[in-house]
Protein backbone atom coordinates (compact mmCIF):
# COMPACT_ATOMS: atom_id res chain seq x y z
CA UNK A 1 0.00 0.00 0.00
CA UNK A 2 1.51 3.29 -1.07
CA UNK A 3 0.68 6.56 0.63
CA UNK A 4 0.93 9.85 -1.20
CA UNK A 5 2.28 12.99 0.45
CA UNK A 6 -1.19 14.46 1.06
CA UNK A 7 -2.49 11.12 2.34
CA UNK A 8 0.33 11.03 4.90
CA UNK A 9 -0.42 14.60 5.98
CA UNK A 10 -4.12 13.86 6.41
CA UNK A 11 -3.39 10.73 8.39
CA UNK A 12 -1.05 12.68 10.69
CA UNK A 13 -3.74 15.36 11.08
CA UNK A 14 -6.34 12.78 12.10
CA UNK A 15 -3.92 11.19 14.54
CA UNK A 16 -3.57 14.59 16.19
CA UNK A 17 -7.17 15.80 15.98
CA UNK A 18 -9.08 12.54 16.50
CA UNK A 19 -11.89 13.23 14.03
CA UNK A 20 -12.84 15.75 11.37
CA UNK A 21 -15.03 16.21 8.34
CA UNK A 22 -13.70 17.35 5.00
CA UNK A 23 -14.51 21.05 5.69
CA UNK A 24 -12.38 21.05 8.83
CA UNK A 25 -9.54 19.32 7.00
CA UNK A 26 -9.81 21.76 4.10
CA UNK A 27 -9.87 24.77 6.43
CA UNK A 28 -6.70 23.53 8.13
CA UNK A 29 -4.68 22.68 5.02
CA UNK A 30 -5.88 25.14 2.40
CA UNK A 31 -3.93 28.17 3.77
CA UNK A 32 -0.76 26.06 4.05
CA UNK A 33 -0.73 24.13 0.80
CA UNK A 34 -3.74 25.18 -1.29
CA UNK A 35 -5.88 22.68 -3.21
CA UNK A 36 -9.61 22.37 -3.64
CA UNK A 37 -12.22 20.86 -1.33
CA UNK A 38 -12.62 18.01 -3.84
CA UNK A 39 -8.92 17.15 -3.57
CA UNK A 40 -9.23 16.70 0.20
CA UNK A 41 -12.52 14.82 -0.14
CA UNK A 42 -11.05 12.32 -2.61
CA UNK A 43 -7.89 11.91 -0.49
CA UNK A 44 -9.97 11.13 2.62
CA UNK A 45 -12.01 8.73 0.52
CA UNK A 46 -8.86 6.95 -0.69
CA UNK A 47 -7.59 6.59 2.89
CA UNK A 48 -10.99 5.17 3.88
CA UNK A 49 -10.85 2.66 1.01
CA UNK A 50 -7.33 1.66 2.08
CA UNK A 51 -8.76 0.79 5.47
CA UNK A 52 -6.81 3.43 7.36
CA UNK A 53 -9.79 5.62 8.25
CA UNK A 54 -13.25 4.93 9.60
CA UNK A 55 -16.15 7.24 8.77
CA UNK A 56 -19.58 8.01 10.10
CA UNK A 57 -22.26 10.10 8.49
CA UNK A 58 -23.23 13.13 10.55
CA UNK A 59 -25.83 15.28 8.82
CA UNK A 60 -24.80 15.57 5.18
CA UNK A 61 -21.10 14.98 5.69
CA UNK A 62 -18.88 12.10 6.67
CA UNK A 63 -16.78 12.47 9.81
CA UNK A 64 -13.47 10.64 9.50
CA UNK A 65 -11.26 9.19 12.23
CA UNK A 66 -8.08 7.12 12.13
CA UNK A 67 -8.78 3.41 12.53
CA UNK A 68 -5.61 2.77 14.53
CA UNK A 69 -3.19 4.95 16.45
CA UNK A 70 0.09 5.77 14.76
CA UNK A 71 2.26 3.73 17.14
CA UNK A 72 -0.16 0.81 16.94
CA UNK A 73 -0.11 0.86 13.15
CA UNK A 74 3.69 1.06 13.02
CA UNK A 75 4.00 -1.69 15.63
CA UNK A 76 1.64 -3.91 13.66
CA UNK A 77 3.51 -3.23 10.44
CA UNK A 78 6.92 -3.98 11.98
CA UNK A 79 5.60 -7.21 13.43
CA UNK A 80 3.93 -8.19 10.23
CA UNK A 81 6.88 -7.33 8.00
CA UNK A 82 9.39 -9.05 10.26
CA UNK A 83 7.47 -12.28 10.58
CA UNK A 84 6.12 -14.54 7.93
CA UNK A 85 3.55 -17.23 7.36
CA UNK A 86 5.42 -19.87 9.36
CA UNK A 87 6.04 -18.19 12.67
CA UNK A 88 7.95 -15.53 14.46
CA UNK A 89 11.58 -15.38 13.53
CA UNK A 90 12.14 -19.09 13.19
CA UNK A 91 14.69 -18.42 10.50
CA UNK A 92 12.26 -18.44 7.63
CA UNK A 93 11.28 -14.81 8.07
CA UNK A 94 11.38 -12.86 4.84
CA UNK A 95 13.57 -10.16 6.28
CA UNK A 96 17.18 -10.06 7.23
CA UNK A 97 17.39 -8.61 10.73
CA UNK A 98 20.51 -7.39 12.53
CA UNK A 99 19.58 -9.42 15.55
CA UNK A 100 16.91 -12.01 16.04
CA UNK A 101 13.69 -10.48 17.30
CA UNK A 102 12.57 -13.67 18.97
CA UNK A 103 13.86 -12.37 22.32
CA UNK A 104 14.70 -15.92 23.29
CA UNK A 105 18.18 -15.18 24.50
CA UNK A 106 19.48 -16.51 27.73
CA UNK A 107 20.83 -13.78 30.05
CA UNK A 108 23.69 -16.01 31.25
CA UNK A 109 24.62 -16.72 27.69
CA UNK A 110 24.69 -13.00 26.90
CA UNK A 111 26.88 -12.38 29.98
CA UNK A 112 29.27 -15.12 28.88
CA UNK A 113 29.52 -13.71 25.38
CA UNK A 114 30.17 -10.22 26.73
CA UNK A 115 32.94 -11.54 29.01
CA UNK A 116 34.48 -13.35 26.08
CA UNK A 117 34.52 -10.16 23.99
CA UNK A 118 36.00 -8.20 26.90
CA UNK A 119 38.71 -10.83 27.35
CA UNK A 120 39.60 -10.63 23.64
CA UNK A 121 39.78 -6.83 23.88
CA UNK A 122 42.11 -7.03 26.87
CA UNK A 123 44.35 -9.52 25.04
CA UNK A 124 44.50 -7.21 22.05
CA UNK A 125 45.33 -4.20 24.24
CA UNK A 126 48.11 -6.14 25.97
CA UNK A 127 49.61 -7.09 22.60
CA UNK A 128 49.28 -3.50 21.34
Amino acid at each position, binding site marked *: *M*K*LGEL*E*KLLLHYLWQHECADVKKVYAYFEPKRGGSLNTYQSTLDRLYKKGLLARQKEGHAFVYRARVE*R*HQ*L*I*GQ*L*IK*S*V*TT*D*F*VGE*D*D*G*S*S*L*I*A*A*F*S*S*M*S*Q*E*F*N*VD*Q*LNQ*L*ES*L*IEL*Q*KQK*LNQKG
Partner: protein
Amino acid sequence: MLDGTLALLLNVLAIALVCFALHNVAVSAIVSLLNQRFLQLQVPSRKATLWLLVSVPWLSALCTASYFYYAANNNTLFENQTSVAHWHHVDTFSWLSWHGLTLASAIGFLSYIVITRIATFSRHRSELAHLVALSERIGSNTYEIQSTDIAAFTAGFIKPKCFITQGMRQQTTEQEQTIILKHEIAHAKRRDPFKKWLFSILCAFYIPTISKRLSLHMTLAMEQEADNAVICSENSSLDIAGTLVKVARLNASGNTIKNTDMVANFGADVLEQRVYFLLGQLNLKPVNKLLMLIIIIATFFLCLSSVDGLHHFIEAVFKH
Protein backbone atom coordinates in the same frame (compact mmCIF):
# COMPACT_ATOMS: atom_id res chain seq x y z
CA MET B 1 -7.33 -45.53 -18.73
CA LEU B 2 -5.16 -43.17 -20.78
CA ASP B 3 -2.63 -44.20 -23.37
CA GLY B 4 -0.31 -42.62 -25.92
CA THR B 5 1.71 -39.45 -25.43
CA LEU B 6 -0.46 -38.08 -22.60
CA ALA B 7 -0.07 -41.33 -20.65
CA LEU B 8 3.69 -41.21 -21.24
CA LEU B 9 3.89 -37.63 -19.96
CA LEU B 10 1.82 -38.41 -16.87
CA ASN B 11 3.89 -41.53 -16.16
CA VAL B 12 7.07 -39.46 -16.51
CA LEU B 13 5.60 -36.99 -14.02
CA ALA B 14 4.79 -39.89 -11.67
CA ILE B 15 8.38 -41.10 -12.03
CA ALA B 16 9.65 -37.57 -11.30
CA LEU B 17 7.45 -37.53 -8.20
CA VAL B 18 8.78 -40.86 -6.90
CA CYS B 19 12.32 -39.68 -7.56
CA PHE B 20 11.62 -36.36 -5.82
CA ALA B 21 10.25 -38.20 -2.78
CA LEU B 22 13.28 -40.51 -2.64
CA HIS B 23 15.67 -37.58 -2.84
CA ASN B 24 13.66 -35.67 -0.27
CA VAL B 25 14.08 -38.57 2.17
CA ALA B 26 17.80 -38.80 1.33
CA VAL B 27 18.35 -35.06 1.92
CA SER B 28 16.32 -35.17 5.15
CA ALA B 29 18.55 -38.01 6.38
CA ILE B 30 21.70 -36.05 5.44
CA VAL B 31 20.43 -32.92 7.22
CA SER B 32 19.48 -34.91 10.33
CA LEU B 33 22.82 -36.70 10.48
CA LEU B 34 25.09 -33.79 9.57
CA ASN B 35 23.17 -30.96 11.25
CA GLN B 36 26.08 -29.85 13.46
CA ARG B 37 28.70 -30.57 10.78
CA PHE B 38 27.27 -27.77 8.63
CA LEU B 39 28.45 -25.31 11.27
CA GLN B 40 32.04 -26.35 10.63
CA LEU B 41 31.89 -25.31 6.98
CA GLN B 42 33.12 -21.95 5.70
CA VAL B 43 30.23 -19.58 5.03
CA PRO B 44 30.30 -19.61 1.18
CA SER B 45 30.67 -23.42 1.14
CA ARG B 46 27.83 -23.78 3.62
CA LYS B 47 25.54 -21.56 1.57
CA ALA B 48 26.35 -23.44 -1.63
CA THR B 49 25.75 -26.78 0.13
CA LEU B 50 22.40 -25.61 1.49
CA TRP B 51 21.25 -24.37 -1.91
CA LEU B 52 22.35 -27.66 -3.43
CA LEU B 53 20.52 -29.69 -0.79
CA VAL B 54 17.21 -27.90 -1.28
CA SER B 55 17.41 -27.96 -5.07
CA VAL B 56 18.80 -31.47 -5.59
CA PRO B 57 15.38 -33.26 -5.43
CA TRP B 58 14.14 -30.96 -8.23
CA LEU B 59 17.26 -31.45 -10.35
CA SER B 60 17.24 -35.17 -9.79
CA ALA B 61 13.51 -35.46 -10.62
CA LEU B 62 14.11 -33.47 -13.80
CA CYS B 63 17.10 -35.63 -14.86
CA THR B 64 15.31 -38.91 -14.09
CA ALA B 65 12.14 -37.80 -15.89
CA SER B 66 14.21 -36.70 -18.90
CA TYR B 67 15.99 -40.04 -18.95
CA PHE B 68 12.74 -42.01 -18.81
CA TYR B 69 11.11 -39.80 -21.44
CA TYR B 70 14.08 -40.22 -23.77
CA ALA B 71 14.24 -43.99 -23.13
CA ALA B 72 10.50 -44.44 -23.71
CA ASN B 73 10.62 -42.48 -26.96
CA ASN B 74 13.50 -44.60 -28.16
CA ASN B 75 11.81 -47.89 -27.15
CA THR B 76 14.69 -48.84 -24.92
CA LEU B 77 12.74 -48.88 -21.69
CA PHE B 78 11.49 -52.46 -21.99
CA GLU B 79 14.24 -54.01 -24.10
CA ASN B 80 16.34 -54.83 -21.10
CA GLN B 81 14.43 -55.40 -17.88
CA THR B 82 17.69 -55.55 -15.96
CA SER B 83 18.80 -52.08 -17.09
CA VAL B 84 19.46 -49.44 -14.43
CA ALA B 85 15.99 -47.97 -14.73
CA HIS B 86 12.79 -49.23 -16.29
CA TRP B 87 9.05 -48.72 -15.92
CA HIS B 88 6.74 -51.50 -16.89
CA HIS B 89 3.65 -49.61 -18.07
CA VAL B 90 4.96 -46.34 -19.41
CA ASP B 91 2.37 -46.08 -22.19
CA THR B 92 -0.77 -46.48 -20.02
CA PHE B 93 -1.95 -44.30 -17.15
CA SER B 94 -5.05 -44.28 -14.97
CA TRP B 95 -6.02 -41.43 -12.65
CA LEU B 96 -7.73 -44.04 -10.44
CA SER B 97 -4.46 -45.75 -9.62
CA TRP B 98 -1.98 -44.90 -6.86
CA HIS B 99 0.06 -43.08 -9.54
CA GLY B 100 -2.93 -40.92 -10.42
CA LEU B 101 -3.85 -40.19 -6.83
CA THR B 102 -0.31 -39.34 -5.73
CA LEU B 103 0.21 -37.21 -8.82
CA ALA B 104 -3.06 -35.33 -8.22
CA SER B 105 -2.12 -34.82 -4.55
CA ALA B 106 1.34 -33.56 -5.54
CA ILE B 107 -0.13 -31.12 -8.06
CA GLY B 108 -2.57 -29.93 -5.37
CA PHE B 109 0.22 -29.46 -2.82
CA LEU B 110 2.45 -27.66 -5.34
CA SER B 111 -0.42 -25.32 -6.25
CA TYR B 112 -1.08 -24.66 -2.54
CA ILE B 113 2.58 -23.77 -1.93
CA VAL B 114 2.79 -21.52 -5.00
CA ILE B 115 -0.49 -19.71 -4.23
CA THR B 116 0.27 -19.17 -0.52
CA ARG B 117 3.81 -17.95 -1.22
CA ILE B 118 2.62 -15.55 -3.92
CA ALA B 119 -0.07 -14.27 -1.53
CA THR B 120 2.61 -13.78 1.16
CA PHE B 121 4.83 -12.02 -1.35
CA SER B 122 1.99 -9.69 -2.30
CA ARG B 123 0.97 -8.97 1.33
CA HIS B 124 4.57 -8.38 2.30
CA ARG B 125 5.07 -5.87 -0.53
CA SER B 126 1.95 -4.00 0.45
CA GLU B 127 2.87 -3.81 4.15
CA LEU B 128 6.39 -2.79 3.32
CA ALA B 129 5.19 0.06 1.11
CA HIS B 130 2.98 1.15 3.99
CA LEU B 131 5.90 1.04 6.43
CA VAL B 132 8.06 3.07 4.02
CA ALA B 133 5.27 5.63 3.77
CA LEU B 134 5.26 6.06 7.55
CA SER B 135 9.06 6.20 7.89
CA GLU B 136 11.57 8.99 7.49
CA ARG B 137 14.24 8.55 4.86
CA ILE B 138 17.68 9.00 6.43
CA GLY B 139 19.86 7.80 3.57
CA SER B 140 19.63 6.18 0.18
CA ASN B 141 17.38 3.16 0.76
CA THR B 142 17.66 3.61 4.53
CA TYR B 143 14.67 4.57 6.66
CA GLU B 144 14.02 5.45 10.27
CA ILE B 145 10.82 4.10 11.79
CA GLN B 146 9.30 6.27 14.49
CA SER B 147 8.84 3.52 17.01
CA THR B 148 10.23 2.77 20.45
CA ASP B 149 10.76 -0.89 19.45
CA ILE B 150 14.37 -2.05 19.19
CA ALA B 151 14.74 -3.25 15.63
CA ALA B 152 16.87 -3.01 12.53
CA PHE B 153 16.16 -5.06 9.47
CA THR B 154 16.26 -5.23 5.71
CA ALA B 155 13.17 -6.08 3.73
CA GLY B 156 11.98 -5.96 0.16
CA PHE B 157 12.52 -8.31 -2.73
CA ILE B 158 13.31 -6.22 -5.78
CA LYS B 159 14.78 -3.11 -4.16
CA PRO B 160 15.57 -4.09 -0.56
CA LYS B 161 15.30 -1.29 2.00
CA CYS B 162 17.05 -0.98 5.34
CA PHE B 163 15.09 0.05 8.43
CA ILE B 164 16.18 1.15 11.87
CA THR B 165 13.79 2.20 14.61
CA GLN B 166 14.05 5.39 16.62
CA GLY B 167 14.23 3.19 19.74
CA MET B 168 17.31 1.45 18.38
CA ARG B 169 18.97 4.78 17.52
CA GLN B 170 18.29 6.18 20.98
CA GLN B 171 19.74 3.13 22.72
CA THR B 172 22.92 2.80 20.67
CA THR B 173 25.99 4.93 20.07
CA GLU B 174 26.87 6.45 16.70
CA GLN B 175 29.51 3.80 16.07
CA GLU B 176 27.05 1.02 16.89
CA GLN B 177 24.49 2.55 14.54
CA THR B 178 27.08 2.63 11.76
CA ILE B 179 27.78 -1.07 12.33
CA ILE B 180 24.07 -1.92 12.34
CA LEU B 181 23.37 0.06 9.18
CA LYS B 182 26.41 -1.32 7.34
CA HIS B 183 25.26 -4.81 8.26
CA GLU B 184 21.80 -4.09 6.86
CA ILE B 185 23.20 -2.51 3.71
CA ALA B 186 25.27 -5.67 3.17
CA HIS B 187 22.02 -7.70 3.30
CA ALA B 188 20.40 -5.31 0.84
CA LYS B 189 23.34 -5.51 -1.59
CA ARG B 190 23.16 -9.31 -1.56
CA ARG B 191 19.35 -9.26 -1.95
CA ASP B 192 19.12 -11.56 1.05
CA PRO B 193 15.36 -11.07 1.68
CA PHE B 194 14.54 -12.34 -1.82
CA LYS B 195 16.98 -15.24 -1.48
CA LYS B 196 15.44 -16.15 1.88
CA TRP B 197 11.99 -16.16 0.30
CA LEU B 198 13.17 -18.38 -2.55
CA PHE B 199 14.95 -20.70 -0.11
CA SER B 200 11.83 -20.90 2.07
CA ILE B 201 9.80 -22.04 -0.97
CA LEU B 202 12.27 -24.86 -1.68
CA CYS B 203 12.32 -25.76 2.03
CA ALA B 204 8.52 -25.97 2.11
CA PHE B 205 8.69 -29.38 0.42
CA TYR B 206 10.46 -30.92 3.41
CA ILE B 207 8.89 -31.93 6.69
CA PRO B 208 8.70 -28.88 9.05
CA THR B 209 11.60 -30.00 11.30
CA ILE B 210 14.01 -30.35 8.37
CA SER B 211 12.68 -27.21 6.74
CA LYS B 212 13.31 -25.19 9.93
CA ARG B 213 16.83 -26.57 10.31
CA LEU B 214 17.70 -25.72 6.72
CA SER B 215 16.22 -22.22 7.07
CA LEU B 216 18.12 -21.57 10.30
CA HIS B 217 21.39 -22.70 8.74
CA MET B 218 20.79 -20.37 5.80
CA THR B 219 19.85 -17.49 8.13
CA LEU B 220 23.04 -17.99 10.12
CA ALA B 221 25.17 -18.11 6.96
CA MET B 222 23.57 -14.91 5.64
CA GLU B 223 24.04 -13.12 8.97
CA GLN B 224 27.69 -14.18 9.20
CA GLU B 225 28.29 -12.97 5.66
CA ALA B 226 26.71 -9.60 6.48
CA ASP B 227 28.73 -9.36 9.74
CA ASN B 228 31.87 -10.07 7.77
CA ALA B 229 31.05 -7.28 5.31
CA VAL B 230 31.10 -4.70 8.16
CA ILE B 231 34.67 -5.46 9.26
CA CYS B 232 36.94 -2.61 8.18
CA SER B 233 39.56 -0.28 9.67
CA GLU B 234 36.97 1.68 11.68
CA ASN B 235 34.92 -1.31 12.85
CA SER B 236 36.81 -4.26 14.26
CA SER B 237 35.17 -7.66 14.57
CA LEU B 238 35.19 -7.11 18.36
CA ASP B 239 33.11 -3.94 17.98
CA ILE B 240 30.63 -5.81 15.79
CA ALA B 241 30.38 -8.71 18.24
CA GLY B 242 29.90 -6.22 21.10
CA THR B 243 27.11 -4.45 19.20
CA LEU B 244 25.45 -7.75 18.41
CA VAL B 245 25.36 -8.80 22.06
CA LYS B 246 24.18 -5.34 23.14
CA VAL B 247 21.30 -5.41 20.66
CA ALA B 248 20.40 -8.95 21.73
CA ARG B 249 20.33 -7.74 25.33
CA LEU B 250 18.11 -4.79 24.38
CA ASN B 251 15.78 -7.17 22.56
CA ALA B 252 15.64 -9.46 25.54
CA SER B 253 15.22 -6.78 28.22
CA GLY B 254 11.88 -6.73 29.91
CA ASN B 255 10.93 -10.13 28.57
CA THR B 256 10.86 -13.43 30.38
CA ILE B 257 13.59 -15.57 28.96
CA LYS B 258 11.98 -18.73 27.76
CA ASN B 259 13.42 -22.12 28.43
CA THR B 260 15.04 -23.47 25.38
CA ASP B 261 13.50 -26.16 23.26
CA MET B 262 15.29 -27.48 20.21
CA VAL B 263 14.54 -24.56 17.92
CA ALA B 264 15.08 -21.88 20.53
CA ASN B 265 18.36 -23.53 21.36
CA PHE B 266 19.47 -23.27 17.84
CA GLY B 267 18.14 -19.73 17.63
CA ALA B 268 20.35 -18.85 20.57
CA ASP B 269 23.20 -20.72 18.94
CA VAL B 270 22.83 -18.41 15.94
CA LEU B 271 23.93 -15.52 18.17
CA GLU B 272 26.72 -17.59 19.72
CA GLN B 273 27.90 -18.78 16.35
CA ARG B 274 27.98 -15.23 15.00
CA VAL B 275 29.97 -13.97 17.99
CA TYR B 276 32.41 -16.91 17.88
CA PHE B 277 32.75 -16.39 14.12
CA LEU B 278 33.58 -12.70 14.62
CA LEU B 279 36.08 -13.52 17.38
CA GLY B 280 37.79 -16.01 15.07
CA GLN B 281 37.10 -18.92 17.41
CA LEU B 282 35.63 -21.21 14.80
CA ASN B 283 37.85 -23.41 12.71
CA LEU B 284 35.81 -23.38 9.51
CA LYS B 285 36.76 -25.57 6.57
CA PRO B 286 35.75 -25.53 2.91
CA VAL B 287 33.43 -28.26 1.73
CA ASN B 288 35.01 -31.35 0.18
CA LYS B 289 33.77 -30.85 -3.39
CA LEU B 290 34.75 -34.33 -4.57
CA LEU B 291 32.95 -36.01 -1.70
CA MET B 292 29.91 -33.84 -2.33
CA LEU B 293 29.91 -34.76 -6.03
CA ILE B 294 30.25 -38.48 -5.23
CA ILE B 295 27.35 -38.30 -2.74
CA ILE B 296 25.11 -36.51 -5.27
CA ILE B 297 25.93 -38.89 -8.13
CA ALA B 298 25.52 -41.94 -5.88
CA THR B 299 22.17 -40.67 -4.59
CA PHE B 300 21.05 -39.95 -8.14
CA PHE B 301 21.89 -43.47 -9.38
CA LEU B 302 20.39 -45.02 -6.29
CA CYS B 303 17.15 -43.15 -6.94
CA LEU B 304 17.23 -43.95 -10.66
CA SER B 305 17.64 -47.65 -10.05
CA SER B 306 15.15 -47.83 -7.20
CA VAL B 307 12.32 -45.92 -8.88
CA ASP B 308 10.81 -49.05 -10.42
CA GLY B 309 11.69 -51.16 -7.39
CA LEU B 310 9.76 -48.79 -5.17
CA HIS B 311 6.99 -48.79 -7.74
CA HIS B 312 6.71 -52.63 -7.54
CA PHE B 313 6.95 -52.54 -3.77
CA ILE B 314 4.03 -50.08 -3.51
CA GLU B 315 2.04 -52.14 -6.01
CA ALA B 316 2.38 -55.14 -3.73
CA VAL B 317 -0.03 -53.21 -1.50
CA PHE B 318 -2.00 -51.00 -3.89
CA LYS B 319 -3.54 -51.80 -7.25
CA HIS B 320 -2.60 -49.83 -10.36
